[in-house]
C-alpha cells in the first residue's frame, strides 16, 4: 500500500503512546451495528499502479475522443486548443495540492493569481468587479437570479427562450425551493431572438431578465435596448456567456449595461472533460458587490507595508453569516480558475482577438458550406462560432447515424428539448480553431449522403 507510510512497528509504538491495546480500541464509539467486520463486498485488494492504469485505460478506450473524429459539438462546452504550458503549470504541486488560501502569508501565489483572474474576468465581461470563480456557468446563472432577488426584493425572473435549457432546468429546480417565479419558453427556429418579447414582459414585479449571449442557437443581438427597458422598471439585466472566446470579437454584455454577467469559462484553459470540472465566471456592477455570492480576493498591505492579497468580504459568507449568507458556496473552482487565467495571460488581448477571428471565420465558411447541402437551411443571420441548421428530417437520429460513421456532428435540439416537435429538426453546429476544413467537408458530404 504505497500511499501509507506507517509500518506495523510504528503502529504498535503509537498505540502504546496513546494507551490503546489495539486499533479497535479507537473505534469504540462506533456502534457494533455499523462496524464492518469483513472485507468490502466485491472490491478486490489493493492494486499496483500498472494494474490500475490498465483498468482505467481500457475504460478510456471505450470513448471516442474529440481529437479522433471530425468534431462539431458545442451548446455550452467548446473544444479549444489549450497550450501545453497551461497544464504543465497547474500541475505544479504548489498549485495543485494547496488548500483554499485561508493563511494568506503562505498562499500569495494562489491569492495573486485570483486577483489577476478577477481583473481579467471583469474586463472580459465588461463588469466593474468579478469573483474568484463559481462551480460552473449553470450554477453561476442560478446564483445571479438569487442575487437579483436580494437586490430588487422581487422574485419574478424572466428567462429568455434562448437560454441554455440545462441552465433553465437548474434555475427551475432551485426556484421550486426558493420561491422565485420563473417565466420562460422554448426558442423558435428563426433568425430573430426574443428581445422584443422580453421587453414587453418586464413589469414592476420583475427582478431580472436573463438572456444568453450568444444564445443557445448561436444567435447574437444587441442588448442595450433590453438593458434600458430593465432599468426603466428597476429590474436587473443578467447576461449569460457560455462561449467566452466570443467576447474577443463582439461587444461585452457589460458594455451594453448588463448589471450581472455570468459565464462558463471552460473554453479558456479548462477542456471538455465530459462536463466537469468547469469554471463559473461571475461579474457585476460595483454597487451590487455586497450581494455577490462566492469567494473574493482583495488587495491589502502586510505589517511591513508590502502589497499582498487576502480573501475578503467574508462577512457575506457561509462560515460567518450561516443561514444569512449570500450563498452556501465553500469550495469553488480554484484550479480551473488558474487554468483559465494562465491561458488568458498567454493569449493576451492580441491573442484572444486573433483566436476569436479565426473561430468566427471558420464558422462562416462552415455555415455556408453546410447550407449548400440539399434540404439544409441555415437559421442564423448573425453568429459567432456556433450556428443552427434546420434539417429536412429530425436531427437526433442523423446525429446518431453520423456518430456511427465516426463523425461528431453537433448537438441536436431534440436531445436538448425532448418532446418539442417544432425544434426536432434543429442541429447546432460549433466550429473552433480545432476544426479543419477537411472536417467540414467530411461532415458536409456525410450529411448529404444521410439526407439523400
Amino acid at each position, binding site marked *: 500500500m504505497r500511499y501509507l507510510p506507517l509500518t506495523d512497528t*510504528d503502529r504498535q509504538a*503509537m*498505540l502504546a503512546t*496513546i*494507551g490503546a491495546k489495539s486499533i479497535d480500541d479507537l*473505534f469504540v*464509539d462506533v456502534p457494533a*451495528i*455499523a462496524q464492518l467486520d469483513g472485507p*468490502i463486498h466485491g*472490491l*478486490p*485488494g489493493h492494486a499496483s*499502479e500498472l494494474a490500475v492504469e490498465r483498468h482505467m485505460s481500457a475504460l478510456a478506450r471505450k*470513448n471516442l*475522443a*474529440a481529437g479522433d473524429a471530425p468534431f462539431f459539438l458545442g451548446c*455550452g462546452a467548446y473544444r479549444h486548443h489549450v*497550450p501545453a*504550458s497551461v497544464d504543465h503549470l497547474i500541475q505544479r*504541486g504548489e498549485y495543485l*495540492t*494547496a*488548500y483554499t488560501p485561508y*493563511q494568506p*502569508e503562505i498562499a*500569495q*501565489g*494562489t491569492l*495573486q*493569481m485570483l*486577483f*489577476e483572474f478577477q*481583473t481579467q474576468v471583469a474586463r*472580459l465581461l465588461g463588469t466593474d468587479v468579478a469573483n474568484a470563480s463559481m*462551480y460552473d*456557468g449553470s450554477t453561476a446563472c442560478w446564483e445571479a437570479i438569487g442575487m437579483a432577488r436580494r437586490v430588487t426584493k422581487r422574485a419574478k425572473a424572466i428567462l429568455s427562450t434562448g437560454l441554455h435549457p440545462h441552465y433553465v432546468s*437548474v434555475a427551475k*429546480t432551485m426556484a*421550486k*425551493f426558493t420561491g422565485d417565479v420563473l417565466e420562460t419558453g422554448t426558442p423558435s427556429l428563426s433568425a430573430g431572438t426574443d428581445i422584443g418579447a422580453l421587453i414587453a414582459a418586464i413589469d414592476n414585479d420583475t427582478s431580472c431578465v436573463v438572456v444568453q449571449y450568444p444564445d443557445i442557437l448561436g444567435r447574437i443581438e444587441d442588448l442595450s435596448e433590453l438593458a434600458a427597458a430593465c432599468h426603466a422598471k428597476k429590474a436587473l439585466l443578467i447576461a449569460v456567456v457560455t462561449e467566452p472566446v466570443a467576447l474577443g*470579437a463582439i461587444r461585452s454584455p457589460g458594455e451594453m449595461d448588463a448589471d450581472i454577467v455570468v459565464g462558463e469559462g471552460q473554453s479558456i484553459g479548462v477542456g471538455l*472533460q465530459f462536463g*466537469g470540472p468547469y469554471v463559473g465566471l461571475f461579474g457585476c456592477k460595483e454597487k451590487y458587490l455586497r450581494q455577490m455570492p462566492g469567494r473574493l480576493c482583495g488587495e491589502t*498591505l*502586510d505589517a511591513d507595508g508590502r502589497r499582498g492579497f487576502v480573501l475578503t468580504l467574508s462577512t457575506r459568507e457561509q*462560515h460567518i453569516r450561516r*443561514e444569512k449568507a449570500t450563498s*452556501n458556496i465553500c469550495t469553488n473552482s*480554484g484550479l*480551473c480558475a488558474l487554468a483559465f487565467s494562465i491561458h488568458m495571460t*498567454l493569449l493576451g*488581448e*492580441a*491573442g484572444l482577438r486573433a*483566436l476569436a477571428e*479565426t473561430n468566427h471565420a471558420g464558422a*462562416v465558411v462552415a455555415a455556408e458550406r453546410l447550407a449548400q447541402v440539399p434540404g439544409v437551411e441555415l437559421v*442564423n443571420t448573425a453568429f459567432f462560432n456556433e450556428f443552427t441548421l434546420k434539417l429536412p428530417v429530425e436531427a437526433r437520429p442523423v446525429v446518431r447515424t453520423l456518430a456511427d460513421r465516426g463523425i461528431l456532428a453537433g448537438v441536436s435540439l431534440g*436531445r436538448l428539448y425532448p418532446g418539442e416537435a417544432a425544434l426536432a429538426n434543429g442541429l447546432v453546429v460549433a466550429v473552433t480553431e480545432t476544426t479543419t476544413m477537411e472536417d467540414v467537408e467530411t461532415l458536409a458530404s456525410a450529411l448529404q449522403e444521410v439526407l439523400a
Partner: protein
Amino acid sequence: MTINASGWRPERPEAGTTTASAFTGNTFTGNRALMLEEALIFEIGSTETTGVEVAAPARVASRLGSLDRSAPIGLPGLSEPEAVRHYTRLSRQNYAIDLGLFPLGSCTMKHNPRLNEKMARLPGFADIHPLAPVDTVQGALEVIHQLAHWLVTLTGMHSVAMSPKAGAHGELCGILAIRAALEARGEGHRKVILVPESAHGTNPATAAFAGYSVEDIPATSEGRVDLAALTARLGPDVAGVMITNPNTCGLFERDMRAISDAVHAAGGLVYCDGANFNAIVGRVRPGDLGIDAMHINLHKTFSTPHGGGGPGSGPVVFSEALAPYAPLPFVEQTADGFRLVEEETAEEHHAGSFGRMVAFQGQMGMFTRALTYILSHGADGLRQVAEDAVLNANYVLRSLDDTLDAPFGASGPCMHEALFSDSNLAEGFSTIDVAKGLIDEGYHPMTMYFPLVVHGAMLVEPTETESKAALDQFIGALRSVAERAKAGDVALKSAPHFAPRSRLDETLAARKPVLVWKDPAVPLAAE
C-alpha cells in the same frame, strides 16, 4: 566543516579579506535570493504581446451582426517564457501538501497520487463532450457507474446522485431531496431544519437556501449532539436534522442511531454531512445508522487535489426512502450498455426527481481520480486508510495534551482530527499567534477558531499519509510554539517572520475593497 561525499567544498573567502558590508537587507529587486517578488501581469504584460500562435483566419465577410468589438478589453499578454516564469515564481509563494504536512482539521489534505492525474488526462476522459452521443462515451458512463457502485457499497446506502459539484452543493442536493420527499407525502408544512452547533457553516446556509428556517441544537460538555435537547425539539414542524459525523469536534456521534430513530419517529429525515468520511471509510457503514442522505467530498476522502480552493465534487448517497427524489441526470445500466437519463420528461422510475442541479453530469475529472484511488487501495487499503488516519489523529492528541488544552480529551478516542483550545496560553495570546508561529516552523497552520463550540479552537487533522517521523517533527514544532505562547513570547505576536509576507491587514482589505487591478497612472474618478 562538513564535506560532501565527493570531497568538494564551497570556496569561502579567507577571514579578514572582505570589506565590512553595510547591507541593510533591502535589495534592489525586492527579491531575497530564492524568495522572489513577482509583479502583476497588468504591470509586466502588454496587450500586444501573446504567447499563443493562432492560425490566420480565412478571409470572409463578418457575420457578427454589427456587434464587432471596437473598444479595447485591456487584457495583458505574456510570451510563453514570461508566462511560465510568472506562474512558477508565484507558485513558490504557496504552501502545499507536496511541501509538507498540512494539518487543516475538517479539510483533509492528504497525498495526491499522480497516477490519478495521469488517468484523468487520458484523452478518452479529458477530451469528450458532455453532450456527445451516448454510444461514443460508454467508457465514461462506466466510470461513473463503477464509482457510484463503490460509493453505495462503502456507505451501505441505497443509491447515489453523482452530479453535485462540491460538498456544499451536495448538502443542497440532500436537503432538496428531503424537501421533495416531504412534499410528496403532503408534509410540506415542515419548515424547520435542526442543525447542531458543531456543524459546518455551510449546513445552516444550505438549509436556508432550500427555504428552511434553521434552529441550533447545543452540544454536550463532551462535544457531541445533546440527544435530549434534540429529541425535545422534534415535532410536526421539523423537516429534519443536519448532523456531521464524525463531527467537527473530531468525535463519533455515538447516539447516531438513536438520533435517526427519534427523527424518523417524529416524521423527519436525517441528513449527515459526510465531509469526514475519510475517518471511517472501509470500517463503518453510515447506512446502518439510519441516515437518509449524506454527501461525500471526493476531494477529501478519495484524494482529488484541492487546487487552491477547488474543484471539489460532492456525490450524495441516499436511503431507499429518498432515492426516488434524487436529481437528474443519472447513469443506468441496461442490456445494451450504459444510458444517461437526462431528460426532464417524467418517466415511471424518476417521476419524483427534484430536477437538475447542474448543466451536465458533474465532475467527471474528479470521478476518474476517485475511482483510480479506490482501485489503488482496494478493500484492504481503504480500511487501512481510516485506521491510520484515526491512529495518527489520536497520536497527535495524546502527544500534546500535556501542553495544550484538549477540551474533549476525556470524551473518548478522537476520529480523524484532534481538537485543542487556547485556554492555557498566556494572557493576550490566542490561537492566531500559535498558527502564525507554526508558519515560521515551516508548517501550514491547523484550522483556527473552528468549531465555534470551543473557544480559540485549534483543529489538527494529520491524515493517514503522514509517517510517524513526520508527525513527531510536527508535534515537536507545535509543542515549541505552544510553549512560547504559554510563556508570553512577544515575538509570536508579529509572526510569521520568514514567510513571503508578514501579517496581512484583513480589516483594510474589507473596509476598502480593491478587487480588480486599476492602472495607477489613470486617475480615479473623485469619490
